[in-house]
C-alpha cells in the first residue's frame, strides 16, 4: 500500500520516464471463454488504473499488457512502442487464443496512432476495435457500442486533476533544463537556486491548472498573462503586507514574467488539447493540415472513431468524411494510420501527440507506414 503510494507520487512527477510493469496476461475479476479481451500498455500506473476500474465497474475481462517499454498508451503509440507489431506479439505470447472462444479485442483509442487495425486483423485473424479514450468510460462505452453517442467517450479532455499532474511534470522537465544555470547563477546570487526552483514549480502548476482562465492563446500569450497577473499581486503584497527576500522588486517581477512566459510556451507540450508550437517548429510546418480526398473516401467512419479531437464528421448524405474542426487537430496521425483507402492527406510526420514524451521518443517515421507482410 505504502509502496504503491510512493510509486504514485514518483509517477506524478516523473511521467517523462518509463515505468514498466511485466507484460503478459492479467485477469480482471473472473473471466471465462466469452469474456472481453482488452489491451493496454505496460506503464505501471496505467495497468493498475485499468485493473482497478474494471474491478470497480464489475467487468470480468482478460487484459493483455503489451510490452510498450513502460510508456503510457498515447506516447508509446506515437513513439512506435505500442504498434501493430507489439499487439501481434502479445497476442501470440500470452496464449489468449486458447482461453477464449471469440476473436474480438478492444484496443485503447489513443493507441490508434501506432496501430493499424486492418494490418492487425490480417496478421492475427482477430477482430480489433478501438475502445473509449479513457478506461473510465469503458462501462458506458460497452452499453452503447455502435450507437453514434459512443463518440462522446472518444474525445480527449483535460480535467483539473490531469492539469495538476501535467503542471508538476512541466515543472520537473523544465527543472532538468534549468538546474545548471540556476546553480551557476547562485554563485553570484545567494539562494537563487532554491527560490527559483520553488518559483518554477509554482508557475508551472499555475500555468497548467489555470490554462482555461488565463487570457490569450495557449502558449506564450497565456504564460505572459500569468506572469503579469502574478507580478501585480506580488507588488501589492510586498508593498502592503510582507517582505520577501532581498531582491529588488523590479528584478523579481522580471524573473517571474520571464519564467512564466517560458513555461507558458512549453505548456501546450504537456496538454492533450493544443498542438505545441515547439512540435510544429521541429516538424518544420507552420500550420498542421489534414484533408480528406473525397474520391478515395469510402465513408467507413473510422477516422471519426480514432480521432481524439473530433476533427472529422461523417456526412451521412454523401457518405464521406469531412474535416470540420481542423484547429483541434493534434497531428497524432491516428486517422492516417488507420484510413483503409489512404484518403487522408497531411503535411506532418505521423505519430506525434502534443506531449513532450512523444516529441522526445518519436523517431523518424514516414507519414504513412507500410506494413509489409511475410
Amino acid at each position: 500500500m505504502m509502496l504503491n503510494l510512493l510509486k504514485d507520487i514518483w509517477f506524478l512527477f516523473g511521467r517523462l520516464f518509463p515505468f514498466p510493469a511485466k507484460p503478459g496476461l492479467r485477469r480482471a475479476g473472473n473471466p471465462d471463454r466469452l469474456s472481453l479481451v482488452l489491451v493496454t500498455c505496460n506503464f505501471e500506473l496505467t495497468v493498475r488504473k485499468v485493473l482497478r476500474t474494471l474491478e470497480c465497474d464489475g467487468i470480468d475481462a482478460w487484459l493483455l499488457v503489451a510490452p510498450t517499454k513502460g510508456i503510457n498508451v498515447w506516447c508509446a503509440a506515437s513513439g512506435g512502442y505500442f504498434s501493430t507489431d507489439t499487439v501481434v506479439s502479445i497476442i501470440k505470447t500470452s496464449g489468449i487464443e486458447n482461453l477464449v472462444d471469440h476473436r474480438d479485442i478492444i484496443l485503447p483509442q489513443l493507441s490508434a496512432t501506432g496501430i493499424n487495425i486492418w494490418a492487425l486483423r490480417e496478421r492475427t485473424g482477430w477482430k480489433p476495435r478501438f475502445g473509449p479514450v479513457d478506461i473510465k468510460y469503458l462501462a458506458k462505452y460497452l452499453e452503447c457500442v455502435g450507437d453514434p453517442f459512443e463518440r462522446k467517450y472518444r474525445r480527449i479532455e483535460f480535467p483539473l486533476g490531469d492539469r495538476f499532474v501535467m503542471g508538476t511534470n512541466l515543472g520537473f522537465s523544465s527543472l532538468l533544463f534549468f538546474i545548471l544555470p540556476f546553480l551557476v547563477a547562485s554563485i553570484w546570487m545567494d539562494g537563487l537556486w532554491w527560490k527559483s526552483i520553488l518559483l518554477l514549480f509554482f508557475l508551472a502548476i499555475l500555468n497548467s491548472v489555470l490554462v482555461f482562465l488565463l487570457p490569450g492563446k495557449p502558449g506564450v500569450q497565456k504564460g505572459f498573462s500569468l506572469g503579469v497577473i502574478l507580478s501585480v499581486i506580488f507588488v501589492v503584497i510586498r508593498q502592503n503586507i510582507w517582505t520577501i527576500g532581498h531582491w529588488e522588486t523590479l528584478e523579481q517581477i522580471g524573473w517571474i514574467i520571464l519564467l512564466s512566459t517560458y513555461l507558458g510556451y512549453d505548456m501546450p507540450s504537456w496538454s492533450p488539447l493544443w498542438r505545441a508550437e515547439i512540435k510544429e517548429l521541429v516538424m518544420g510546418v507552420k500550420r498542421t493540415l489534414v484533408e480528406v480526398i473525397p474520391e478515395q473516401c469510402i465513408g467507413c467512419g473510422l477516422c471519426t472513431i480514432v480521432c481524439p479531437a473530433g476533427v472529422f464528421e461523417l456526412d451521412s448524405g454523401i457518405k464521406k468524411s469531412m474535416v470540420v474542426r481542423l484547429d483541434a487537430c493534434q497531428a497524432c496521425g491516428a486517422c492516417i494510420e488507420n484510413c483503409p483507402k489512404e484518403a487522408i492527406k497531411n503535411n506532418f510526420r505521423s505519430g506525434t501527440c502534443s506531449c513532450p514524451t512523444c516529441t522526445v521518443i518519436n523517431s523518424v517515421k514516414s507519414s504513412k507506414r507500410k506494413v509489409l507482410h511475410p
Partner: protein
Amino acid sequence: MSTLVYMKILERTPEKYDRGMRILTLGRIDRIKLEIASLWVKSGHYVLEIGCGTGRLAALMTARGAHVAGIDISESMLTAARRNAPEAELIHMTATEIDKLERNRFDRIVATLSLSELEEDEIAFVLRDSFVLLKTGGKLIIADEVKVPTWRKRFLACFVSWPLSVLTFLLTRNTTHALKRLEGRLEQTGFRIVARKNYLLGTLALIVAEKT
C-alpha cells in the same frame, strides 16, 4: 525549449543505433559479427537473421555467398539495411511471427543484440520456433548481453554495464535486459551448445547451439 533539447538528444536514428551499440559493447560487436560471418556461415547457407538492424551482419553474410533473410520491426532500420545489404531479403516482421516461415529450411539462425530487447515470453517463443525452423544440424547463433553467473563477477560487471546501459539508452533509446540462463534454456529446447565465447567480463557472449 527543454522539450526540443531532449528530443534532439534522444532522437532514434539507425546511425545513432549503430554507434550506441558499438559503445555498449566497446567495439566488440563489430568483431563478433565478422567472426560469425567468417567462421559459422558458409556459401549456400540459408540464414535467418532475427533483428537485422542496419544490415551490417546481413551484408557480411551475403558477401560470403549465403542466402540471408533478415527480419526487423523498425522500418527505418530496414531502410538502412536495404541500403547496406541489397542482396538480402529483408522483411518487416516481429520475432514472434517467425512461425509463419518454412519449417526445417534454415542452416543458421542468427540474433545479435536482439533477444535482449525482447520480453521473457517472447524469448521463449523465439527459441522454440528457431528449433522448428532449423534443419537438423543447423545452428542458432546468439551474440548478446548475458547475466554473469557468479556474484563476484556480477559485482565487477556492474561497474562496466551500468554506465554503458545509461549511455546506450541516451544514444539509442533502447532498453535491454541481459539474458538469464540462456544456455540452460537452449538445452531445454533441444539444442546442444557447441561453442561459447565471453567478452567484457562475461557480460557479452557469443553462443552457438546446434539442433540435434
